[in-house]
């Protein structure tokens, strides 16, 4: 499937939604999209061609994991891993499984992360792409397990591991098991690193809580998309704790860059090229 096909399906789906959404949006969503940042209206088709980046203000719209696969890998090279893992309900929270099932239907993913192997300008890479459309990208056992298996696959293949993070943090409904996924993914990354392999973390909007405080921050190279919200604690919690208003740009990618917490902020339009170059500069034979 090419990116053009993606549009087609989106267009059809969105048409059905127009009538429902008309009251909230001045502009029909299916054909036209209004930027939530600068209110610029453009053809949805053009927006998709522009990698879901506002042509006027550079606002980076959220992307689905599939959309990232389309724009990131060499065409036809991506093969997904571990699509068969399904969450269970360890703490027996009412309606947790129903929520999972509903998001499986909505996103076409088995959980909040899509993992797989593919090629980037001919170099084999292993990737994990989180999708905030699935339970806000929160990390439970399956997300932790899929990411860990992907890291282990990268170690086994002596390949670079690349992650696109998008997550509100640990998943409450799986309690301390969710917390422990931070440690599980980190021990796997430590092993991948000890073997001398490259890990690039690409933080997208939003990357917070337990995801921010584990693999997202552990890249040999940590990148972020412009204006992505990245942080450990939530803004409201911090404001309540320190009893002061936080600056407008607090916990944005640019804020982190200014405070020495990121290697670079990279526009989505340059991301593929940037990552590809970094990967090429780490190919063992080239050194």
């Amino acid at each position, binding site marked *: 499937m090419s990116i053009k096909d993606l549009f087609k399906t989106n267009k059809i789906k969105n048409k059905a939604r127009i009538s429902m959404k008309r009251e909230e949006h001045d502009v029909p969503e299916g054909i036209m999209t209004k930027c939530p940042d600068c209110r610029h209206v453009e053809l949805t088709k053009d927006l998709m061609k522009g990698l879901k980046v506002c042509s006027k203000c550079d606002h980076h719209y959220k992307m689905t994991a599939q959309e990232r696969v389309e724009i990131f890998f060499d065409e036809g090279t991506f093969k997904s891993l571990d699509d*068969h*893992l*399904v*969450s*269970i309900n*360890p*703490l027996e*929270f009412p309606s947790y499984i129903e929520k999972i099932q509903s998001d499986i239907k909505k996103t076409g993913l088995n959980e909040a992360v899509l993992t797989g192997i593919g090629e980037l300008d001919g170099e084999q890479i292993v990737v994990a792409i989180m999708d905030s459309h699935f339970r806000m990208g929160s990390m439970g*056992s*399956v997300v*932790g*397990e899929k990411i*860990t298996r992907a890291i282990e696959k990268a170690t086994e293949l002596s390949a670079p591991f690349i992650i696109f993070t998008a997550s509100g943090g*640990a998943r*409450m*409904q*799986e*309690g*301390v*098991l*969710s*917390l*422990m*996924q*931070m*440690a*599980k993914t*980190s*021990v*796997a*990354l*430590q*092993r991948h*690193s*000890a073997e001398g392999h490259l890990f690039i973390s690409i933080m997208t909007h939003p990357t917070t*809580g*337990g995801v*921010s*405080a*584990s*693999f*997202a*921050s*552990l890249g040999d190279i940590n990148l972020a998309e412009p204006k992505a919200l*990245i*942080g*450990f*604690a*939530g803004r409201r*919690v*911090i404001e309540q*704790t*320190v009893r*002061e208003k*936080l600056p407008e740009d*607090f*916990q944005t990618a640019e804020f982190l860059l200014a*405070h*020495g*917490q990121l290697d670079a902020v990279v526009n989505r339009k340059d991301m593929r090229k940037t990552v590809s170059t970094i990967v090429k500069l780490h190919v063992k034979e080239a050194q």
Partner: protein
Amino acid sequence: MVKYLPFEAPLMQLREKINELKEFTANADVDMSKEISQLEDRFSKLAKEIYDNIQPWDRVQIARHPERPTTKDYINAIFDDFIEFHGDRNFGDDEAIIGGIASFEGRPITIIGHQRGKDTKENIRRNFGMPHPEGYRKALRLMKQAEKFSRPIICMIDTKGAYPGKAAEQRGQSEAIARNLFEMAGLKVPVISIVIGEGGSGGALALCVANQIHMLENATLSVISPEGAASILWKDATLAQKAAEAMRITAPNLKEMEIIDEIIPEVLGGAHNDVVQQALNMKMVLSDSLEKLKNIPADELIENRYNKFRAIGVYTE
């Protein structure tokens, strides 16, 4: 003076009655020793009944008891020759975490732990045991130092969580926690973590990537505080008691989930009732753990740690 918790109210009432009788016996010329001894028996039975049926929320209350022993209390009671080392060599010294070297049964060890204050003044200095990034970086510096000199590392976990503050975010709270998880995975020396009070979220986990994790009987380890869970799940922080049960945060819960290795028994009513005895209970478990890990080669220690965390999670294939 030891404070009683709400669930201990019946005990407190009985104790008051006993004390009244004792006073009466002492002042008046009536011998009530028989009655007193009967009441003492009833007290023991009631105590057993209450503590045998202890609920998760009761444990949370014990874990938060103002007089609950802290890392420092246990260091003083368990180790010899403790010398505290300060600072992360980069930004400052975060007193929410203490660490240093000591000897345990004649062997050098490195000890690191969250440190709450005993009173308001000390709590402010120690930020209520809620670390900033420099606290985690100090901890990591001391772990690397321990690795260089082949000393086992003992961590004590006792925090509501990493501090949610402006400066903490600016200096990389996320990175500091993540770095500890990552680096602890690769340590070439034995690491033992003991949760002694509240183990709150990532801020607790950052000292928990160990070969063995133990918990005091009334300690908790959770992804979020019961109050936080209640307000997210049910939009009502007053349902914390219900959340404490639903989230399965107690030592027996974690043992059942096979996340921790051992539950360290607490003295009746909680560690605050007898620090000396409590320290002895810890000492026994610690001694066992160190003995078990003592002769394991570095690569196996790393492998064990890997397998321990690798196995955590539930799902269907």
